[in-house]
């Protein structure tokens, strides 16, 4: 069927029987141990008290996505070097594993197919796979040795596991070379790497009986390394081979800035302090961690020298779950400073190659602290302000419409049906930067002649700050009230200039009440881009300084709105200069996750780092589309440019459009 049956090789030739038996016994024991450990970890996941979030995508969709994830490594190749290295290793490993399975089938089953041209081509492919595996591994080892990056874990465990893989790869090629060197059969030239090594061995005087003895020793070493590998699969960095794909496909597909739903009930308090209080998916994800440290590298808090290292939080969750321990779980050793440093910008989630929801776990731990009363005073003050005054700034509610003084604003009457609701938000109502944006938006809306309304004093905080800071119950209260208000007004369309409100309305309120969103939600940058594209706003050219756009995390990374604000700026003929980190790799302004009110000290300030990036572009204007970002960057501007003669201006896209429209 496959040609000449003489073109093949003797499987386990020259291998003593006892060694072959020892290998089989060792392999069975190692695989059995791996199965037991993996089974134990999976069984522990079933002990998780909190139900997992229902996946947003269907089963087939997730399977297809998982296969695509494996085949193309899109997530991994965001770090190009590591992505290609892993791709080589992965495909090399798959090919080697397939080759081993072929050999097993030929040797230990009645099947007979490993001969002729099939054997020759299989040998070629397996050799190339082995070479790819070794190249990928050497790329990783080279970077590990040469790079001074803090994100790379260094330790004897990681090093020994890497050495084991190297030993498997190198011993496999040497074994093949020794086998071929015994008699140098001409059909083995398809085994390009093995034949080359055999020629080298022959040149070194190793052939015949000497090569047979080499083959026996190398076979034993290779088999021992493989058995060790089988047994170590559920440990350390190898663990991601089992859990990585499951993690990447289990909960994927949700917007990055959407927090998982926290089911509340008499028996189920929100939040977690021990691993049992997390969800099954959380535990699965923790096991999938590859310890690559990309989350640490992307984290703005870590970059600013704050104590948060997202990888450490995930590893603490993973390691706090002893595989065999039956004792009551201990609280996770994550300090308050670590927890409250997070800005919930989701940069860690974006960077993670196996799709771990890192900041979701941080928020879960925050919820646990809130339930036990262990929150910083500033956080407690924010909660009380939201509960008592319905805004996180603690300003009296009577000031909510102070921004509208002197401009014509259409405030909705009670229960008046609203075609287009402009949701001003607390930042737009109470902060000077936000008020300027709200005024600009109202002027634009008046210019457009659209039948819009604002809710005025009926508006309340969406609950986003409270939710990010761990107060799930308060968020539910705010959501319930706002949904009731919106339903009473029969709102058809909602626009807001605050990405946090936008994210809450679009992604999180439907979780509170699945019948909650008969309205469409738009961010004001989408709305303005739409109006400009349809010709309702002319957005006249504004000769002026170059502009750089800061992507708000909850707008860009969280909801994939990147193009619209840039299209507005381009339409105004403003020269757009991008910062080094933009788009989905944008850097946080430092206000999210309650950091607007909480401040964990670091070596630097996050907003100052971001402002420096913006100033480095040479632009004269920092445009943004979030009142919180505007506030933070403006504060950084004041800190940096106190003595500068020509400081940067920080403006919202709505302010730029209003200026261009002359309204």
């Amino acid at each position: 069927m496959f040609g000449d049956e003489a073109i093949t090789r003797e499987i386990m030739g020259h291998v003593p029987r006892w060694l072959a038996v020892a290998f089989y016994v060792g392999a069975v024991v190692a695989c059995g141990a791996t199965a037991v450990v993996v089974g134990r970890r999976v069984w522990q996941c079933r002990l998780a008290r909190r139900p997992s979030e229902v996946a947003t995508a269907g089963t087939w969709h997730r399977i297809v996505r998982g296969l695509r994830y494996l085949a193309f490594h899109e997530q991994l190749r965001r770090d190009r070097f590591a992505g290609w290295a892993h791709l080589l290793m992965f495909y090399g490993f798959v090919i080697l594993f397939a080759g081993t399975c072929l050999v097993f089938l030929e040797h230990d089953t009645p099947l007979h197919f490993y001969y002729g041209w099939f054997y020759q081509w299989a040998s070629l492919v397996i050799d190339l796979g082995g070479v790819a595996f070794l190249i990928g591994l050497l790329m990783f080892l080279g970077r590990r040795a040469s790079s001074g990056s803090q994100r790379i874990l260094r330790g004897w465990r990681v090093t020994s596991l890497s050495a084991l893989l190297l030993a498997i790869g190198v011993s496999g090629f040497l074994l093949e070379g020794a086998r071929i060197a015994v008699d140098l059969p001409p059909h083995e030239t398809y085994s390009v790497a093995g034949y080359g090594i055999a020629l080298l061995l022959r040149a070194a005087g190793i052939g015949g009986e000497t090569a047979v003895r080499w083959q026996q020793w190398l076979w034993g070493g290779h088999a021992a390394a493989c058995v060790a590998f089988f047994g170590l699969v559920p440990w350390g960095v190898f663990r991601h081979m089992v859990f990585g794909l499951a993690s990447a496909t289990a909960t994927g597909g949700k917007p990055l800035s959407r927090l998982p739903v926290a089911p509340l009930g008499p028996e189920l308090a929100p939040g977690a302090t021990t691993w049992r209080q997390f969800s099954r998916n959380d535990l699965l994800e923790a096991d999938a961690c590859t310890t690559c440290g990309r989350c640490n590298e992307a984290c703005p808090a870590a970059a600013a020298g704050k104590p948060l290292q997202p990888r450490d939080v995930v590893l603490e969750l993973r390691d706090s779950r002893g595989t065999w321990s039956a004792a009551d779980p201990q609280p996770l050793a994550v300090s308050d400073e670590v927890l409250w440093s997070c800005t919930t910008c989701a940069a860690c989630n974006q960077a993670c190659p196996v799709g771990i929801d890192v900041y979701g776990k941080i928020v879960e731990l925050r919820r646990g602290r809130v339930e036990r009363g262990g929150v910083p005073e500033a956080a407690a003050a924010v909660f009380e302000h939201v509960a008592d005054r319905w805004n996180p700034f603690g300003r009296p509610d009577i000031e909510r419409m102070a921004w509208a003084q002197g401009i014509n604003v259409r405030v909705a009457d009670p229960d008046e049906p609203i075609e287009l609701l402009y949701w001003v938000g607390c930042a737009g109502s109470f902060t000077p930067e936000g008020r300027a944006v709200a005024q600009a938006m109202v002027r634009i809306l008046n210019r457009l002649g659209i039948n819009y309304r604002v809710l005025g004093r009926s508006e309340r905080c969406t609950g986003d700050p409270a939710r990010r800071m761990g107060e799930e119950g308060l968020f539910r209260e705010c959501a319930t009230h706002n949904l009731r208000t919106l339903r009473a007004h029969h709102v058809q369309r909602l626009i807001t200039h605050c990405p946090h409100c936008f994210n809450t309305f679009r992604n999180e309120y439907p979780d509170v009440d699945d019948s909650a969103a008969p309205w469409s939600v738009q961010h004001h940058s989408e709305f303005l881009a739409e109006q400009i594209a349809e010709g309702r706003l002319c957005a006249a050219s504004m000769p002026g300084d170059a502009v750089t756009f800061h992507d708000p995390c909850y707008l860009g990374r969280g909801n994939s709105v990147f193009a619209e604000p840039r299209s507005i700026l381009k339409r105004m003929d403003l020269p757009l200069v991008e910062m080094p980190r933009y788009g989905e790799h944008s850097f946080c302004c430092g206000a999210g996750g309650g950091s607007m009110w909480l401040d964990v000290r670091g070596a630097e300030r996050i907003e100052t780092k971001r402002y420096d990036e913006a100033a480095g572009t040479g632009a004269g204007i920092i445009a943004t589309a979030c009142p919180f970002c505007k506030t933070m960057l403006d504060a950084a501007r004041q800190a940096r440019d106190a003595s500068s003669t020509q400081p940067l201006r920080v403006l919202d896209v709505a302010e730029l459009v209003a200026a261009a429209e002359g309204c």
Partner: protein
Amino acid sequence: MRIAVVIASEADAGTAGRLPAGDRAAVHWGIGLSRDGCCAHCPAADEMAAAYARAAGARIAAWDELRTLSWDLAVIGPGAIDRYGDRLAGELAESKEAELLFDVLHVEGGPRSWRVTCNAGCEARDLVTVSGPAVLVVSHRAPRAPYISRYRLTMASVEGVTCVGGEGDPSPPHIIWGPVTPRGPRAQQPAPVDAQTRGARVFGIGGSPEPVRERAVIVEEPQTAARLLLRYLAHRGFVSRTVADAAPLDVPQPLSAARPEVLPPVAAAIELLPVTTASGSGLWPAGLERSPRTAADSPARRGRRPRPVGDAVGARPRPRCENSALRRAPRRLDSPGAPAGRGPYRIAEHSSRDAGRVETLPATSPR
């Protein structure tokens, strides 16, 4: 040691109520100090207060039991005081012959006595050691209590927290509120005038070219109107303050429910003397003479105006003083920058009615 906590939420327009921070602190102090558990007493139907106490871990007790149960320490929140007045604290203290301390900022205690920190004003603190029954009224400025999440509050409410009210539930002070005239639109309001003219208009004094509107005139019982007029005249220096103070404070109840007739203004009935800062009433030294500012005042005097409150007042940064921490914090005993003649301060113990009281007193400056 039995501890009773008395709390009440303050009702706010449009909300279900709000438990003041001091009441929250009272609950946590009670829980922290008690070993046998503390009882929280809440007014009837005040479910917010009851839910909070329960969520914090206190037992809910009937209001009546406040008088019948024995306790060693009663901690009263400012919300309860706002609702029932100081009388509540006084009655409790009298019923048990207990020490009564107001404006308490902190309390820590052992099995036999408590060390209480009271607010003595001007950032000063009184450190008082009390033993035996005591009634502590928590200050509005008490430190923030540990946060109780909304989930716990909700669960405490769901579990059927009911406030047990009884016949002995003290009713709030009987207050009859008069009719409230809503403020008119700004455009309809008269142009702002100086204080002198406003005062004259209120009393219908002076040759106002436009007719004095009825609502500008004080309409009251004769005694009240007379008392207010005397206060105004004393304020302007036309009569001595002793005369004004001699007016009875307790206004008798009106003899009839009917409102008195509006009397015509006594415009220009009295020849008023021009008021100058130089020549006052003669009753007070020139430096102590008080009168409203006028446009004719010196620039320094006119400059002492309150800050205008505009829409952007919140946006304006408050001037920061580098030494504000030194100036505003309680004075340290070894403060090197204490002004001569006023410090250094020392803690002096003295015997008084409150045994064991420790106060901060200024030491006589060594000369």
